[in-house]
């Protein structure tokens, strides 16, 4: 029966292969070949969750199934489940430490998971294992280096890769995006011209063209490029990324209703394609447990980590799209402050803490181990873990005393941060909640329990997090400074002076020339922070009041508490 199923699948008789596999799995639920056949079928035409489930079943039957492990890691990475993807990729490396594919997978996942320095190691390992001249691995490494801001090295790798394999569109696309991010627009256009000649109907290249045209102010032409993508697609429609780009263009052209409609369509597609929706219960559950643990009474009896003379973090906190990238770009232009970008280590510590404390409890309850004699200095260990992980990134510039960590939603763990780094400045970037939620909805973000795919869930998660921040502020003494994005736009110098004074560093004019800061920001804001401050992002929600009406009641209490005027 299994042989017939495999044969049917090979012959393209998918319905027969599916029927046979399902029949066999009814009798023998752990039959690996049937699971594989069914997985291949679901992978090609089923919902991604179904294919992933089958991979999990395969791995449960045979934990050493290397192929299934790699496939699952890749699938999870593509659907935004980076933390779990990393677990499986690590297993792949454990199973086959000499396998270039396993290291390539680790490289890809770590690069996407904001750990490009660790990703670089695995790419180089993969290159070494494959003989050192694999053009795809070279292109992957180039993308990784671009994410680290090492533009020249990345550029050279693209040159070398395309010399070996001149007609790989993914490589050319990566190179175009490198040049675009590095503001070498002419160079990007030239590479794109070359790529389009080879692949005239490639939607990804056309999308890159649209982005380039937008960044150079040619909005109508950019829209035309997107129209071309739609004409070329089988269903005459754009995918989620293309729709979001179209929305950005329509917004710039003042066609707000159409822009919002494109955002809605994009999120609808993304939800369907990735199978994600807001994980409301886990989000609420975590918030409830954090509030339950971090109370004034308990905090009075918890130790604090010691403060080291070593460089200290500045936590730039804020919901995604609040202006944290802008603040980091300004601060890191200061000669005493290095940019750490989005460091994933606080979230990582919440995961490893129970193991480090030998606790049967999860975070945050595992912090109760700090009351035990053998873990009284446990917070020092957590602090050192964070600092060691940061040192591994080699991001600290010479003569700097501080580094920024602007991982969005780190404020979820404000209590833990204040215990680990009681002297670290906590700069909370605030922006009009409607602007934040609108912008989150208009960008393909996976932060915050996948809240961003719906306007309402983005608003609900925003309220949840702000409520949590208020809880921490009530219950704890924090070195906390709220900074409004709108104030930064209105009066950058005053805001920069205030932040530097709070940190304890003298004012430096260079912080106001942040748009000349050649450091590359990897996040969705990278294009904005290379421009001078502009006012159009301030109170942008006013163009979308009709569309935002359903979430105004959700956000109104916080809008009022933050002191913004009536909507």
């Amino acid at each position: 029966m299994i042989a017939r199923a495999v044969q049917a699948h090979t012959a393209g008789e998918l319905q027969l292969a599916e029927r046979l596999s399902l029949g066999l799995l009814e009798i023998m639920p752990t039959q690996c070949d049937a699971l594989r056949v069914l997985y291949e079928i679901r992978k090609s035409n089923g919902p991604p969750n179904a294919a992933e489930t089958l991979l999990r079943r395969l791995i449960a039957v045979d934990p050493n199934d290397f192929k299934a492990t790699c496939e699952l890691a890749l699938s999870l990475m593509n659907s935004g489940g980076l933390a779990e993807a990393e677990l499986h990729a690590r297993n792949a490396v454990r199973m086959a430490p000499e396998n270039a594919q396993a290291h390539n997978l680790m490289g890809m996942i770590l690069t996407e998971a904001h750990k490009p320095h660790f990703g670089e190691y695995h790419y180089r390992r993969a290159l070494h294992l494959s003989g050192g001249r694999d053009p795809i691995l070279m292109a992957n490494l180039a993308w990784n280096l671009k994410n680290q801001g090492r533009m020249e090295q990345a550029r050279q790798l693209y040159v070398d890769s395309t010399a070996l394999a001149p007609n790989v569109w993914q490589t050319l696309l990566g190179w175009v995006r490198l040049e675009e991010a590095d503001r070498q627009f002419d160079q990007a256009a030239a590479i794109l011209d070359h790529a389009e000649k080879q692949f005239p109907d490639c939607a990804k290249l056309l999308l890159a063209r649209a982005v380039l045209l937008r960044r150079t102010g040619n909005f109508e032409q950019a829209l035309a490029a997107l129209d071309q993508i739609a004409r070329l697609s089988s269903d005459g429609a754009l995918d989620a990324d293309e729709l979001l780009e179209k929305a950005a263009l329509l917004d710039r052209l003042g066609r707000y209703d159409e822009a919002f409609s494109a955002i809605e369509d994009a999120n609808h597609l993304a939800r369907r394609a990735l199978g994600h929706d807001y994980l409301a219960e886990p989000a609420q559950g975590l918030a409830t447990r954090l509030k339950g643990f971090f109370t004034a009474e308990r905090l009075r009896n918890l130790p604090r980590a010691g403060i080291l003379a070593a460089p200290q973090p500045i936590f730039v906190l804020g919901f995604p799209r609040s202006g944290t990238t802008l603040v980091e770009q300004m601060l890191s232009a200061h000669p005493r402050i290095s940019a750490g970008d989005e460091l994933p280590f606080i979230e990582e510590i919440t995961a490893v803490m129970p193991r480090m404390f030998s606790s049967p409890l999860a975070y945050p309850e595992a912090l109760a181990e700090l009351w035990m004699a053998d873990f009284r200095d446990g917070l020092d260990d957590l602090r050192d873990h964070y600092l060691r992980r940061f040192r591994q990134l080699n991001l600290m510039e010479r003569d700097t005393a501080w580094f920024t960590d602007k991982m969005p939603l780190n404020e979820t763990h404000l209590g833990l941060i204040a215990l680990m780094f009681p002297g670290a400045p906590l700069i909370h970037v605030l922006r009009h909640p409607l602007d934040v939620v609108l912008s989150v909805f208009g960008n393909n973000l996976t932060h915050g329990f996948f809240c961003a795919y719906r306007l309402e869930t983005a608003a609900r998660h925003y309220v949840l997090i702000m409520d949590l921040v208020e809880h921490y502020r009530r219950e704890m003494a924090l070195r906390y400074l709220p900074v409004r994005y709108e104030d930064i736009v209105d009066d950058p110098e005053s805001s920069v002076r205030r932040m530097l004074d709070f940190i304890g560093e003298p004012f430096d004019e260079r912080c106001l020339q942040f748009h000349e800061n050649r450091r590359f920001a990897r996040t969705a804001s990278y294009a904005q922070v290379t421009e001078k401050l502009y006012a159009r992002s301030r109170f942008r929600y006013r163009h979308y009041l009709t569309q935002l009406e359903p979430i105004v009641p959700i956000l109104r209490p916080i809008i009022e508490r933050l002191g913004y005027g009536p909507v």
Partner: protein
Amino acid sequence: MDLCSNWMDAASQHRAEPTIHMVPLPLVSVLKIAAEYEHAGRYDDAAELLRTILEAVPNQRDALHLLGVLAFRKNDPLAAMRLMEQAIAQGASPALFWRNLCTLYERTGRYKEAMAAGRRAIELDPGDAQAQHNLGIAYYRLLRIDDAVACARRAISIDPTLAVAHFALAEALLVQGEFAAGWEEYEWRFQIPDAGAPMPNTDRPQWDGAPIANGRLLLIADQGFGDVIQFSRYIPWVRERCPDLVLACGGEMLSLLQHNFPWLPLTNRLEPSGHFSAFCPLSGLPRLHGTRLETIPATPRSIYAVPDRVADWKRRLDVLSPGPKRRVGIVWAGRANPPNRSVSLSMLAPTAMPDGLVLVALQKGPAQREIAGYHGRAPLINLGPEIADFSDTAAIIESLELVVTIDTAVAHLAASMGKPVWIMLPYAADWRWLLGRCDSPWYPTARLFRQETPGQWEPVVARVAEALSRMSAAFPACSGIETSCGSRCA
């Protein structure tokens, strides 16, 4: 068999459709029952009866009035005021309604209306001592102190045992600096109904100020924490007359008082204070001392923080606000009584604070929650959750340059420590801040910022902010704070 049993038996035979017999009662009887409920503290039962009356007889005057009284009892003076106004609007209202309305207007900050209502009550019943007292309070709130004194004296002449009127007279005399007569009237405070009795249940006498050579004197830290701090300056004077002393005080004060009076046995319970020959509340010491305006025992510093705690808190503050920052302690709310002395944090910490300032919140209690909603320019450190007692507060104050506060215990503590303290006062401030002054003979380092219009805090806060800006411009951080206010009141 009694009536109640008869009804139960009948009901048990007709479970499906029990018959409810309606027994008509005269309105006055129902009102009487409602009033009895109110006296017994059964407010919900009383309210239900009154609402039943109002359903049958809308706008029934007495029911509206009593419902207003209930709303007041349930701490809703605004609703009480509206009901009382509605009752009076029905016409032919007795003096009692106007008397009560006077109090409600006073509690809700409508002092001129309170004055008018009080006058109307007296017109209707000039012999009502309580109405005279209520009107006197309204006058006090408007700083018409002579009128307040006259009202209190009239009330006392009608009813010499009316303790609240004596106390009101005391406050009106003391606020004018007439300490000799004021202290005598002030002794009535323990006779006020519901004022609480800090005195021990004892046959021992209250101390008269004469030396006690062979006997123990029990001092009682009565009234609020601010009073304890203010009057603790008299303890050395008492010791000269009664070497054998013991002080009963709240747990929050123990550590601080122990440090400052290491020779003084302390207890935080009255019962285990052992045998004593006489007792005396701390708030009674100024009278026994014979304090007059010109003889207030004011030293630059009477309270010291515990050095170990100072070191601990300094380390904590140096972590939370390192560098040469100007640390300003703030307190914006006190207990509900006396009313009108609290502001909101959002009002106290305006966005136009000068740069280089760090606000250190010393606030305790429910108002501490307001910190979560603070998004002003100056960083604000919430130390409230970590403050266990007044020793902590004193130790923190030691690391501050200035304390800006409403009239609460922290004001007395900072001032007793000789720290610059700026105190924001309501229009009719407590007697100890006297009248029209921007300094205090009790505290050389205190600077008073008074309301110029009842209820108007914004101009007060603006003057404080302006003074902070001037201070920031004139003095770099850590170089000292101006404490005098010159000839002009802030």
